[in-house]
């Protein structure tokens, strides 16, 4: 392991790992360059991954991490550079080629079909044949069970995917890749959607895989967990590798500085800005009628102007439904009032007009028109705001100018506002959405995972924006899987479990452990 990077001064303290292991090299990337219109996503990147290592890749949003991994997985062709797998040079034209070479990738956004079983999902695309024609389910089931046992994944092949939680889905994605014979596993932000104990489980699984000789490359913005599990860390900045460090040698802070190329701003001390004016009052919100399982069960909550109310919970316990009910997207019973006015029967558009901003949890599905330029995305959901429209007409000039503002203020890294949203890196898409939803001085912001997939620097910036707005009277309903974010940002915390609020905490005194156990429903009976 060698330390490279033009920024000698910065890398010095981080580069402790000079021991020369003679272990085998699983993947070697040499001089990889990849250009997109207006952007060099990868510039002369070199990366060496040892066999049987967990190798982490970190870097800012838009640094080029996903692009590099897509190149290794055959989804993108590099303009220049060489890929070597287990010592021999390879050229991938499609992911199929990469799979044959033993490389598999799990994308950040799950790609499982909800209404199929785990077994069906796993074999989809590489169905085992019996005598050339009939599907051989028995053989597939056995293989899945064997794999699951061998790597301790604990997966039942016959349950429906819609019935399993995100943590399990993540393992199904991994199993799907292993099923195809992968010995080198790429995981793009695998922990972004997981709560802490699921992260721990995932890492246990990963260690199990590594013991069996599998190599893992993973991308993460959570530097603490990177330091905890990785055997080696590569830092990418602005498309190029700036450092290769070993986790023993660095702190999260140093790592962050390596990523950004400058010192991180220190978190501000803050005081409460909670007023006693009620902004949002939700009473008895319920989804699911008599006899059915209630996805939302009699939820009551109050948010004041200048207050952030955090909702903690394992994904899939009713958070999404709560948010959609408050936004008027999903029918529910109960009452909702905004600044004293009952809005229960209002349409989504009217609610947004009345000053509710909405950062949806799934940015691709609910937050963006991927095939539309950034400035049209600025209009989405804000079709009545002055900057965007004049009466019946679209105000193209105003929308474009305001998009420029968001790009500037929220540091959205993009070649321009005419590129399609699909061309932005995941974190930059997120920044655009946050910027959009904070525009027009909303009264209430519903923020589901507002910093999911954004890097530490941008995360701090978004938090700052939220705090400033909060000080000016914004009420925030915050949903997050990131406990630090919840505790650090909220004025009050509620825990949701199976659709009901089961506990409340003061973030000033709660520990992540207490929160974690409340989230799993422990002590519910008590």
């Amino acid at each position, binding site marked *: 392991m060698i330390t490279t990077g033009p920024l000698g001064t910065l890398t010095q303290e981080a580069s402790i790992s000079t021991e020369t292991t003679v272990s085998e090299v699983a993947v070697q990337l040499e001089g990889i360059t990849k250009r997109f219109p207006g952007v*060099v996503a990868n510039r002369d990147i070199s990366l060496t991954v040892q066999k049987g290592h967990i190798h982490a890749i970190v870097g800012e949003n838009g640094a080029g991490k996903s692009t590099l991994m897509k190149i290794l997985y055959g989804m993108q062709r590099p303009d220049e550079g060489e890929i070597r797998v287990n010592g021999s040079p390879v050229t991938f034209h499609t992911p199929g080629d990469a799979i044959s070479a033993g490389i598999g990738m799990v994308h950040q956004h799950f790609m499982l079909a909800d209404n199929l079983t785990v077994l069906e999902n796993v074999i989809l695309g590489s169905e085992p044949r019996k005598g050339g024609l009939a599907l051989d389910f028995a053989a597939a089931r056995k293989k899945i069970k064997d794999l699951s046992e061998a790597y301790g994944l604990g997966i039942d092949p016959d349950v429906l995917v819609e019935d399993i939680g995100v943590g399990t889905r993540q393992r199904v994605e991994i199993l799907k890749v292993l099923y195809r014979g992968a010995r080198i596993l790429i995981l793009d932000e695998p922990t972004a959607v997981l709560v802490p104990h699921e992260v721990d489980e995932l890492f246990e699984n990963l260690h199990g895989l590594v013991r069996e000789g599998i190599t893992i490359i993973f991308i993460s913005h959570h530097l603490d967990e990177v330091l905890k599990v990785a055997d080696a860390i590569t830092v990418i900045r602005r498309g190029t590798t700036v450092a290769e460090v070993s986790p023993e040698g660095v702190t999260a802070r140093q790592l962050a500085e390596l990523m950004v190329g400058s010192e991180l701003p220190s978190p501000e001390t803050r005081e409460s800005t909670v007023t006693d004016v009620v902004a949002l009052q939700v009473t008895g919100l319920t989804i699911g009628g008599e006899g059915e399982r209630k996805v939302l069960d009699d939820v009551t909550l109050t948010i004041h102007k200048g207050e952030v109310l955090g909702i903690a919970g394992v994904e899939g316990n009713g958070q999404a439904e709560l948010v959609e009910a408050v936004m008027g997207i999903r029918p529910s019973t109960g009452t909702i009032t905004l600044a004293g006015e009952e809005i229960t029967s209002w349409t989504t558009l009217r609610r947004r007009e009345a000053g509710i901003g909405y950062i949806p949890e799934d940015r691709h599905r609910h937050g963006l028109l991927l095939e539309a330029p950034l400035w049209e995305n600025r209009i989405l959901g804000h*079709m009545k705001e002055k900057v965007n429209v004049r009466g019946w*007409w679209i105000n193209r000039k105003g929308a474009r100018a305001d998009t420029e503002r968001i790009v500037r203020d929220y540091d959205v890294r993009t070649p321009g506002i005419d590129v399609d949203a699909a061309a932005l890196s995941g974190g930059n898409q997120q920044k655009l959405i946050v910027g959009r939803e904070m525009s027009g001085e909303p009264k209430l912001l519903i923020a589901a995972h507002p910093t999911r997939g954004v890097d530490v620097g941008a995360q701090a910036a978004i938090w700052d924006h939220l705090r400033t707005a909060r000080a000016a009277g914004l009420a925030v309903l915050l949903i997050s899987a990131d406990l630090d974010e919840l505790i650090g940002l909220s004025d009050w915390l509620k825990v949701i479990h199976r659709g009901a609020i089961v506990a409340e905490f003061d973030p000033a005194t709660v520990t992540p452990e207490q929160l974690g156990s409340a989230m799993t429903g422990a002590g519910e009976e008590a």
Partner: protein
Amino acid sequence: MTSSFTDRLLGRVKLSGWVSLAAPVLAIVFAGVVTSIVLALTGNPVFDTLTTMVDYGSQPRSLVLILNNATTYYLSALAVALGFRMNLFNIGVDGQYRLAALVAAAVGGAVTLPAPFHPILIILVSMLVGAAWAGIAGVLKATRGVSEVISTIMLNTIATGLGAYLLAQWAVPVAGSNNIGTPPIAESARIDGFAFVPGSSLKVFGLIFLAVAVGIGFHLLLNKTRFGFDLRATGRSEQAAVASGVNVKRMVVYAMLISGGMAGLIGMPQLLGASYSYSLDFQPGLGFTGIAIALLGRNNPVGIAFGALLWAFLDVSANILGLHKISPEIVTIMQGVIVLSVVIAYELAHRYRGVAEQKRVSRELAGAASTPQKEGASA
């Protein structure tokens, strides 16, 4: 995440630059080649047939016919395209247009009004009937979730039956034939054409200007208004539209109403400009031609204009083939092949565009290697 095949097919994904022109041109050339092969296989002279068609199609009289046919096709394709832009498949334009023209002709024949009001009334009635007929499918989809493909196809059949019944109720014999039609519309509602092509006394439909206006209106509505934004957003991602506060059900009804209203216009140039009565021989199938032309023109008003002209040219020039003992169906083959190959060509162009764009940028950036390169994603 990439665009889906239907997104590309229906032009919801942009194709820019010369590729967007090259694709249809190549497709037409390819269709020409296929047609030539078919001609050769059936023992017809290839070159002569094609030149005969072009010669005939470029005569003044044919040009007028082409413009008139294209006017009708254009309106039909725009009606279809409006739905397509929202991911709605209005297959029922045909029934909407026929029923609308019939009722409008009957109303027009029954009343007399001063000049400007009479044709306006007829056009409004036609749009209303078209909108109402399409609206049924819209309401069914919005309230009951019935696929508009199925309901509009069934409404086509019902329109045929209902049309025949109503015509029998209202009709009078058409003078000089054993055809029946609605009572002729009085002078006050007739919109004169004008002999605009030198060398032919045949008149171009006066309502060709209506078609142009509808094309411009289509562009403005879709690209410049809030309604158009909502419509396109719904077409691109229904889920994102819902989350943004677009009332998708209402949009479905509105889009069907507008599409049907536009379908109501299809029969007007013919009714007010030439036949003055709706009779049994009113051209059926225009709605289906509209689907093909909307695909050709990628649901874009300018593209559709070219598509409509091309289609009309082929239709008109097919008339000469019979004289040369060549089956005019050869043109139908050609039209079919054009649609297919345009679809394929656009698909290929989409793939090529990505690759070409990246190569071009790479070359440019690599060429500028001596100057300091732009780093990362800095704009």
